[in-house]
């Protein structure tokens, strides 16, 4: 029963991945749409970033003094200047850990 649901979920997911790649040709997208599509990364990823920072495991908003906000700010600053993915992730994690294990402990 669960396996059937997994298979359906998998097929559905595959279709979301495949549809636009396989069925759209260049002529079907006008220049205006292409120009808007330039913004896809900026228009999609914050929907993963913001809830990941501001909403906790129970689906409610975090406090404004939550260590995650500080960690995310440090990651933004380090990422902006270093242009390095590993430095960005580590800076965010380490500053977050510093707050939860050292400062707030």
């Amino acid at each position, binding site marked *: 029963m669960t396996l*059937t649901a997994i298979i359906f*979920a998998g097929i559905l997911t595959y279709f979301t991945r495949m549809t636009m*790649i396989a069925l759209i040709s260049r002529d079907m997208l006008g220049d205006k749409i292409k120009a808007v599509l330039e913004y896809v990364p900026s*228009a*999609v990823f914050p929907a993963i970033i913001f*809830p990941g920072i501001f*909403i906790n495991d129970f689906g409610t908003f975090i406090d404004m003094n939550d260590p995650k906000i500080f960690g995310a700010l440090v990651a933004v600053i380090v990422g902006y200047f270093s242009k390095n*993915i590993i430095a960005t992730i580590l800076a965010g994690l380490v500053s977050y850990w510093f707050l*939860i294990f050292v400062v707030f402990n």
Partner: protein
Amino acid sequence: MLSKKQLFTRGMLDISPHMLSVIPFGIICGAIGVELGFHPYLVYAMSFIIFGGASQIVFLQLLSGGASSLVAVASVGIINSRHLLYGAVLSEYLEKLSFIKKLLISYVVVDQGFAESNKFFKKNRNEEFLHYHLIGTGCTMWVCWQIATLSGIVLGSFVPEELGLKFAIPLTFIAIVVQDLKKLDHVIVMITCGLSSLLFFDAPFKSYIIISPIIALFVAALLLRLKK
């Protein structure tokens, strides 16, 4: 002109820093599935059949919380509908490929792979075998995801929960978009998307994940009109 192998390797190298967040997240995903009481084989089957981080966790959490299979399947479909946008962007670069190749490549498209390959494509439009970069990012993610979720399933949550490693996921995406903060139009689009995602977080079927990009793209279209 870069060879197929060079492009594949470049793709692998471009996505590998993201494994710092993907691997702990995969371990957590595998461990959660078993903790929620699902058979280990089923939990692993998801990594192979669905192959989509957050959607796998949501699927199991919904089922174990008593939701119907239909609701769980619909939620996975909606969470992953953002791939329609990635596909629309990628289609321009993959156009010359045969239909079969397009079908095969589609299976390995993931968020971070799309992001890194798209950055590479924009700078190297004229490469003949561009798609090998996407295969490189996708296959690297696929292998790491299988190993990570399997380890979580077999070994349990050996990553201490206190470390809060789920937080590495928003950080990995910060690393992807942070350079676009230099451009005001992108900043406006990002803030629109981020605020919308918080505003619509409680919308049914996790639909905030596609509602907010649509709102943000609408704002992007308005900005383009203003620029002219």
